[in-house]
């Protein structure tokens, strides 16, 4: 029983992590329709910024976090301006491949600059966990969960309630018509990608200290993020959050009660199963023919 409770607690913190990974991608992949292979690199980038700012510049942990977010925003804007803008209007596979190229190049660049040896960021949180009866959880993880919740809420309101969010959705549904409404489409492209990127960097900045930091850390994170976004339905923030928790639950229970070798398989099986029964994700957009 206590083991089960522990799995549930783990699921909560892990699910928060996954939701955090998912929301940035929901913007870029779900709304912008760019298969963003640099998502993992931006995640890694956020983590390295934390490392540099905290350890090499000696800045306070809590100050470093927003710096990492800003850095992610800038890098995202730069990627959009240099790599995506010239290919505006090309099909989705072409931009996907450019993103693949950027992923390969940037990941190797990270390796070149910082080497393959993992780094770790020290945090101001106590090492001793919070113990609640039979279960325990680390303070750092609780902080990450809280920060994730905050980011999720902010993103939700940004996309679904703000004028900017409205313009974003309109732009990627019909660019020409959006421009006829007076939307500056170029600006929307850049800022959507930049916001999505800053969310990826935020995830990296929060999770880097939880785990360790190395050049390929983003790969697995990105695959999971894609899965989560799909699971929840493209462009759906609430869906991404729920998708994140479902994936976490499947993995925890899979590892705990089936076989740890198939831990990751559980997640993917869930995805296949969900898509068989709900082919457009858990929260599908309504469509019609004719």
């Amino acid at each position: 029983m206590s083991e089960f409770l522990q799995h549930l607690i783990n699921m909560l913190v892990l699910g928060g992590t996954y939701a955090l990974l998912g929301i940035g991608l929901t913007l870029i992949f779900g709304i912008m329709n760019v298969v963003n292979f640099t998502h993992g690199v931006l995640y890694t980038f956020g983590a390295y910024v934390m490392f540099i700012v905290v350890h090499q510049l000696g800045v306070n942990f809590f100050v470093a976090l927003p710096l990492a977010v800003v850095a992610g925003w800038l890098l995202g804007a730069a990627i959009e301006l240099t790599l995506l803008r010239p290919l505006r209007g090309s099909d989705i596979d072409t931009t996907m491949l450019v993103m693949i190229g950027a992923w390969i190049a940037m990941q190797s660049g990270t390796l070149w600059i910082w080497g393959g040896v993992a780094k770790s960021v020290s945090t101001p949180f106590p090492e001793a966990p919070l113990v609640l009866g039979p279960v325990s959880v680390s303070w750092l993880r609780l902080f990450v969960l809280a920060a994730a919740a905050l980011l999720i809420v902010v993103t939700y309101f940004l996309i679904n309630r703000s004028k900017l969010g409205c313009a974003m959705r309109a732009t990627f549904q019909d660019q020409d018509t959006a421009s006829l409404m007076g939307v500056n489409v170029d600006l929307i492209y850049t800022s959507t990608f930049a916001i999505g990127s800053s969310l990826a960097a935020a995830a990296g900045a929060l999770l880097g200290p939880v785990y360790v930091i190395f050049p390929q850390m983003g790969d697995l994170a990105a695959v999971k993020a894609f899965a989560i976004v799909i699971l929840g339905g493209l462009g759906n923030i609430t869906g991404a959050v729920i998708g994140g928790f479902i994936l976490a639950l499947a993995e925890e229970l899979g590892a705990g009660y089936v076989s740890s070798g198939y831990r990751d398989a559980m997640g993917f099986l869930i995805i296949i199963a969900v898509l068989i029964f709900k082919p457009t994700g858990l929260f599908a957009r309504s469509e019609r023919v004719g």
Partner: protein
Amino acid sequence: MKLAVTILTIAALASFPLWLRDPYLMNALITTGIFIIGAMSLNLLLGFTGQLSLGHIAFFGIGAYVSALTSLGFDVGLPGGFRIVHEPWPPAVGFVLAIIVAGLCGYLVGLLSFRVRGAYFVIVTISFAEVVRLVALNWVELTQGPLALTNIPSITIGLPALGSLTLRTKLQNYYLVLAVAVATYVLISRLVHSHFGRAMRGLMENETLAVSVGIDVTKTLTLAAVISAGIAGAAGSLYAHYIRIIDPEVFAFINTVTMVIMVITGGKGSLAGPVVGGLIFGLLPVFLRPIMAPEAQWIAYGGVLIVILFVLPRGIVPSLAQRWAKWRSRPRAAGAVSFSERDVKENA
């Protein structure tokens, strides 16, 4: 014209080993050739039905494992106390079985693709590949898991009556790969120019409309998936018998990515695209290796990829064909290439 170009290309490819004596380059050409076959099969799905499979390596890997296990033999226990004991069979049988089993897996994924399209299909294929990888990794009794299947025999061809030949040398393997590649090219070409190919294109461009004129989605997509997977399985089999060791690493995502790169830079939806893209990105690392640091090689690799797409966003072959068409007949509208003409330009 078209035939002449094709024959010339094949002749040029066939002549490589005669003047190229460097075994390392031969090795690179053979592995590249194997991946090109995989890329051609991916192109059948991506370029002609619009479905991107980011788990295509699963079929390749399944082909490799099936072929390897057929020729090595195995002995596994199943739940309920059953055992399957299999004595080694000749690799040529493995090759055929690889195609069949991979094709069957393609059928399963194809059935799924009836329900999910686009991004959802992409994730289903990624998930499928991951699940297959994890099975290969964890079903140690059958696949040896991470301990790898080693000492896979080289492929033997021949008829019982005429004796047989075991393909050990690079030269032999090169011609085998070339032969399979040419066969694949012809098969795909015939398929996409038949009315099946038109049905695929119709589904890709406007599914609702295609269905309304009587095109059967499930049948068409499944057919494409089965053939595509079967070809990928064949490529996997060649790979297993050439490299002679298989471990779950073959399912690595980067291998799928390599095929996707080959297809899209070369030009999806064009027959020659994967071949051109494949030769470039199969051999690029070979040329980069001596001139820069390992990390820089990857950066250059990514850079070349980006530059190609910036210059030729629709892929090398279609973009060049379009320019060529424009140059040849200026008054005609751009992009107005019909089915029948498309290939002539492509090969020109």
